[in-house]
């Protein structure tokens, strides 16, 4: 039980943020991260094409293109939230961790607050906003303390 990593991929497959969410998370080098980001982006696109059942208008409940929403493995679950603009927020956690969806939505809110309203952030570029990383850290603290409730 516990969160592992967060990464954000922009609409063209570039990795714009990667961050470990707990000390239990394995160390991954920056080059590997870039590879993971673009690989996930491609798999996401292939999954959307390969899916035998199309959602209405090829849109999911968020109004974004369909594709991978969740991957479950023996030692990890991966959840992806794709927004309407094609940005993908991906979180990985140990199996049995709850509230992944809530956390992804909260991170989306933080992204639109701290990164998009920052005059020094350029769209589609790596996120280097101190405020955003601090907010994600404090969000994770609140989640661990059980202050963020399922909505």
């Amino acid at each position, binding site marked *: 039980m516990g969160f592992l990593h967060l990464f954000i991929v922009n609409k063209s497959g570039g990795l714009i943020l990667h961050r470990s969410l707990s000390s239990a998370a394995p160390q991954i080098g920056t080059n590997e991260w870039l590879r993971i980001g673009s690989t996930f982006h491609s798999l996401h696109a292939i999954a959307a094409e390969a899916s035998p059942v199309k959602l209405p208008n090829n849109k999911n409940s968020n109004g974004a293109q369909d594709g991978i929403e969740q991957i479950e493995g023996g030692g990890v679950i991966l959840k992806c939230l794709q927004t309407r603009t094609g940005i993908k927020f991906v979180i990985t956690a140990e199996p049995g961790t709850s509230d992944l969806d809530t956390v992804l939505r*909260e991170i989306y*809110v*933080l992204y639109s*607050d*701290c990164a998009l*309203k*920052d*005059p*020094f952030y350029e769209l589609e570029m790596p996120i*280097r*906003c*101190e*405020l*955003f990383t*601090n*907010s994600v*850290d*404090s*969000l994770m603290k609140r989640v661990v303390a059980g202050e963020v409730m399922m909505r």
Partner: protein
Amino acid sequence: MSRSSSNNILDRPLGRVGGRSTDTTFVSLSAFAYIYSELVQYHQSRAASVSELERRLESAGYGVGLKVLEMTAYRTKEMKREIRLMSILHFVSSSVWKSLFGRSADSLERSIDHADEYMIIDYEPIASTFVSVPTDLGQLSADAYVSGIIAGVLDGAGFAARVTAHNVKLEEGERQGGGSGSGGGAGGNAVPGIPPRKNKAVFLVKFSPEVLSRDAALER
């Protein structure tokens, strides 16, 4: 923003509405943050240095200050013209702050080292709510726009001053100690989900010599 009938700022009378001394029409913080972000980006693309960017933001606020002075001075109770240095500073940190940000500034202090310098301190400066200044821009203060507004108000009132904005790190337990911070969010940051701020905005007001000598003459 609502376009319906009397909510429109242009349709409302210039004077106080319903006897309230503060303006009760609010603009969404997001709307302000987006437009301010664009303003900063516009000036950043045209400025060669950090100090030029600050100066550009200040001059953008200057005109606002002149206009805010007219409106706020008319809307305050006595409608009197402030001629003393302390009273105009008070007017800025309470009336002007209230009409712009919905609350008073957190404190107004006189510099210990220089007699011509005063400091207006705000723990939750609205302009830098969502701003993280990158390291290559050094000590740029995103609140330079507000310092321009202050300069405009003071200049319009006949108190020529140079106003600069500075980010100052909060000291341990500084925020909890002073209970002067009124209104705003109850503790922490005004925006839910964002951790409390580590910096405060200090607006340094340096009056020009003739203003000080005039005030000294009034003292007698």
